[in-house]
């Protein structure tokens, strides 16, 4: 799951009456489509200038060490794939990282460790409850949910 196999692309192409290549070129073009196996959680560390100035290289190095993988690799348990991504538009809260479709911002190394633990725990629970998920536990992590103009503190108003 989370990636587009050649078989899946061929199936969609047939449905849309297109050449598979017309779709495959989109799969390889866009960053958010994957044409290879990825882990349950795809970690995208922003590596653009503002995050670089805010310590993203240190964050990436730390994640490589903690997960025991290099960039673009997946952990053997299939949980994490580590990518770098280009500017996420979170430049005032560097360093930023995207986990699947969720932003985590102004991350300290200690928070990253807790985030990895939380994600592992979530995956364990999901397996136990057959993918039904569960409530998150532990201290809140700096998930991007709020915005105060020019203020380093975030308000937590992530409701839609």
């Amino acid at each position: 799951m989370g990636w587009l196999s050649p078989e899946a692309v061929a199936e969609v192409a047939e449905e849309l009456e297109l050449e598979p290549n017309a779709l495959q070129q989109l799969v390889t073009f866009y960053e958010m489509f994957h044409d290879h196996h990825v882990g349950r959680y795809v970690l995208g560390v922003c590596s653009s200038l503002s995050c670089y100035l805010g310590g993203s290289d240190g964050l990436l190095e730390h994640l490589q060490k903690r997960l025991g993988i290099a960039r673009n690799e997946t952990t053997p348990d299939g949980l994490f794939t580590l990518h770098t991504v280009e500017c996420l538009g979170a430049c005032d809260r560097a360093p930023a990282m995207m986990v699947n479709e969720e932003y985590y911002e102004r991350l300290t190394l200690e928070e990253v460790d807790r985030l990895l633990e939380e994600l592992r725990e979530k995956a364990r629970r999901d397996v136990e409850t057959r993918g039904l998920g569960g409530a998150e536990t532990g201290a809140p992590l700096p998930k991007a949910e709020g915005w105060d103009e020019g203020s380093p503190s975030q308000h937590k108003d992530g409701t839609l």
Partner: protein
Amino acid sequence: MTEKVLFANMGVPNSWEIDVYESRGGYQALAKTLREYSPADVIEVVKKSGLRGRGGAGFPAGMKWSFIPKDPGVQKYLACNCDESEPGTFKDRQLVEYDPHQLIEGIVIASYATGVSKAFIYIRGEFAFGARRLEKAIAQAYERGYLGQSILGSDFSLDLVLHRGAGAYICGEETALLESLEGNRPSPRSRPPFPAVVGLYGKPTVINNVETLSNVPHIINRGAEWFASIGVPPRNTGTKIFSLSGRVNRPGNYELPLGVTIRQLIEEHGGGVVGGRAVKAIIPGGTSAPMLGADKLDLPLDFDSVAQAGSMLGSGAVIVMDETVCIPHAVLRMVEFYVNESCGKCTPCREGTLWLRKILERIVHGAGREEDIPLLLDICDNITGGKTLCPLGDAATGSVTSGIRLFRGEFEHHIRHGCCPTDSLAMKH
């Protein structure tokens, strides 16, 4: 403090809800437009206001709208560009997350002015949270009769569709955006014809940035003269949202009149440079804009002043580098972005950016050669100046040429001594 216009609703609880927006005067500009103005009147007001595009190019919005053919029999489209991907820029993200109705109201008025019956918002795929907020806001606007058939009982109808991208900087380039909307591989088109004549699905298309369109309801409500009195009239009017990031104490989005100086932005609003250090270089408009040195701190941030200083205001993303930042390293980081994001259609951009990266890598890793500096400049020269279909190639060279012009000594030091001249990389944790 200067008055907030676009950010007036920031901090108001549930500012993204239609009830809150209406209670603060929202959708009054649309009602006024449909009641009192002809489409040509709206274009005239926006022209008079002096509003220039906030996406990067700074083209006058009213003039852009006036290029759309008036023939009512021709299908026309509007595409709102929310592909915000220019490194350093995060203003549209805040606008759609916290005031989506302000944007929707602007889109409806702009569509009325240009005879558009179907509009799109192209939002970058990474902005999943903003997309959810917009999706809900669009549904609310339909429910209240601000979108759909016979808007507010008038004979004007408009459909608005939210389209999520999937991660590609090039989709912020207007013709690539149209290709992406059509489901094609998003490569820029050759111009002319321009999108105002041949755009989406071959039809006349208005393309405006989120911040540009968000300004429109305020111009209708308060008049062209009011808008034109803010900033540096007559050519640089209104407020601008500056996305301030890098080595400052209080990074963030700041809405200020055009013409505020870089020093005011950094010191009065951004809380100064981290650690009280000195500024080494500033990028005034996203990494596509050439760097400026510390001698330009008193430069007014408006389209014309920044262009005269040899750079560009672009998206208004101001990135601050302090004295501990190694310029060759920073330039390499900026170039890597363009290597990854070049769509590959034009050879000078596709190949040139690769060579820029290769040479910069050997310079910062201690294997640089004496001839590398002129070689970098030669490659830049062979990318720029109309050799590519879109500005991405030119953008890729801005940091290289300005970096060498302002900080040549740092490149030479790397080449001769194989190490950084700056006490840098304090940026690691």
